[in-house]
């Protein structure tokens, strides 16, 4: 996690939606909170958005200038860039219910 990590799960099987979920996780260094957040996020995505998501992890300690674009104050912050509208979820994503609400995935279930 020291450098920007990009994980891709390109879809191929799911016919429900061709749309790709673009998610960005902002962290500041390899802190327990950010590790927890990444773990939680992966778990949720695997469960709900299998093969339809892309997670970009941005370490602000390395790329501080990127904090301005998404107006990042809190760490960790998850930004749903696609599909629109942009949504922000702050915290270590331990509250799965809230994450689902925040990502607008509950309706999809």
């Amino acid at each position, binding site marked *: 996690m020291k450098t920007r990590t990009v994980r891709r799960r390109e879809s191929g099987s799911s016919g429900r939606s061709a749309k790709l979920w673009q998610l960005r996780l*902002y962290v*500041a*260094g390899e802190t327990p*909170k950010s590790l*927890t*957040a990444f773990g939680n996020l992966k778990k949720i995505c695997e469960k709900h958005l299998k093969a339809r998501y892309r997670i970009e992890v941005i370490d*602000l*300690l390395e790329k*501080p*200038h990127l*904090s*301005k674009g998404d*107006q*990042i*104050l*809190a*760490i*960790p*912050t998850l930004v749903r860039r696609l599909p629109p509208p*942009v*949504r*922000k*979820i*702050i*915290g*270590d*994503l*331990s*509250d799965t219910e*809230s*994450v689902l*609400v*925040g990502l607008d995935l509950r309706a999809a279930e």
Partner: protein
Amino acid sequence: MKNSGHKFASPAARLPKCPTGIRGLDEITGGGLPRGRPTLVCGGAGCGKTLLAAEFLVRGAVQFGEPGVFMSFEETEAELKSNVALLGFNLAGLVRRKKLLLDHVYIERSEIQETGEYDLDGLFVRLNHAIDSIGAKRVVLDTLEALFAGLPNEAILRAELRRLFRWLKTKGVTAFISAESGREHLTRYGLEEYVSDCVIVLDHRMNEQIATRHLRVVKYRGSPHGTNEYPFLIGEDGIRVLPITSLGLNHTASSERISTGIPRLDAMLGGQGFFRGSSILLTGTPGTGKTSTAAFFAQAAARRGERALYFAFEESPSQIMRNMHSIGLRLEPWVTRGSLRFHSARPTLYGLEMHLATMYKEIETFQPAVVVLDPMTSLLVAGSESETKAMVTRLIDFLKSRQITSLFTSLTHVGNPLQQSEIAISSLMDSWMLLQDIEGNGERNRVLYVLKARGMAHSNQSREFLISRRGIDLVDAYVGPGGVLTGAARAAQSARDKAEALANQQEASRRKRELERKRGALERQIAALRAEYDAEEEELQRLKDQAATRTRLLTAERTELATLRHADPETAGGMRGKH
């Protein structure tokens, strides 16, 4: 610095200060904000927090070579730029030259979902990046409280704010944190709990429909500071705090004298006019010629090659100039040449403090040698009597410290020549002249007298004050058994005097002529007598000569006869005695 006697001097040396460059604020704080520490500035809406913050950064960047970061939680970069452009600050230029960095932090609560533990490292990283990218020494956070509205978990937020302020200190930047004022605490969210080095409160108050902003340093750890509430103004060129107590009575007094522009008035003032740098009060009832006197005074300064600044609170510049034409005074050339400037403003336009600041600014930019305030009493409308006095005191001190001669006119009401307020203000004045109306014989006449003139022998006489097409003249009023005569009565009296003098003169010449005539007559008489005498003398001489001739002839005849007769000489002589 230690022996300067300034009360803020020695602590300033102990605690490093970061000068704000804002006029007046550095004076109150003894040199500026605590360097390398956060300062909290709180106040209600519209009291100038953002502008103060912006000026702190701009002056830091321009005057003290300290780049600054402006992190705004409310206004966008574009809004900030246009807002402070009104104060003449060019933020865009400073941003281009990397002297200033604007960063708009935007939080929308509806977009944010909270899911467990977090911290504000994002803000830290962002601020750190901003500071490092331009090597900032000053930071403004305006207003941090927006975070409370944007982030739901107050416990986390408070812990993070505490960490933020600690971090700012270790970063060594002088931080300016603005906050909304609250009801129970100084700030709405109790930020003063975290920022404890310096707390400044701004306030915007209405007093009789006139709003004035005030500034107060509530707390300044490790440094003495002015504790009073100081009025401050947002002018066209920034903020100006007006410390009342900063000026002392230590101005030097000049012995140079300057003309009043009216020769006879100079004569009344010991023949030379006012002292330079003195303050003059000119009171009078309506229409007694206060403005005219003031205009002559201003023009005299312009004639000497000095600059005169005329604050008019009742008339517009063109109206004054037009009116002065009627008494033969042309002010336009001086205005065009730049040696005379008018500044007209309605007294009710803004509060006293604003007036004072405007005047300070005008005086500082124009650098006049003479200032006229016409009329000072109008300012009473803008503030209470005590406020006006305080303001005039400060203005006079300010003017005296710059050796500027000031003329204040003051309107009194008919039948009430000396108002209480004037007596109060007059004690501040070095000279006091009174213009009065004297009514009698169906006319009103103006009379001027010098009530006091500190440090000079001045006339104790009332002079009649004449305003004509040729200007102002002072005429000796006729003081007779019936009292002081002015106007037509004085003219009549002097005509009578003149007639009498003429009669006396004629009488004298008549007597002289008579004397001449008498002398002529006598002289003629003397000449006649002398002629008579001469004639008589001549006659007498002739007779005497005839007698002598006859005697001689007789003697000769007798001698001849005697010779013929051979008679005795005695007998012959006796016989010839009768013929």
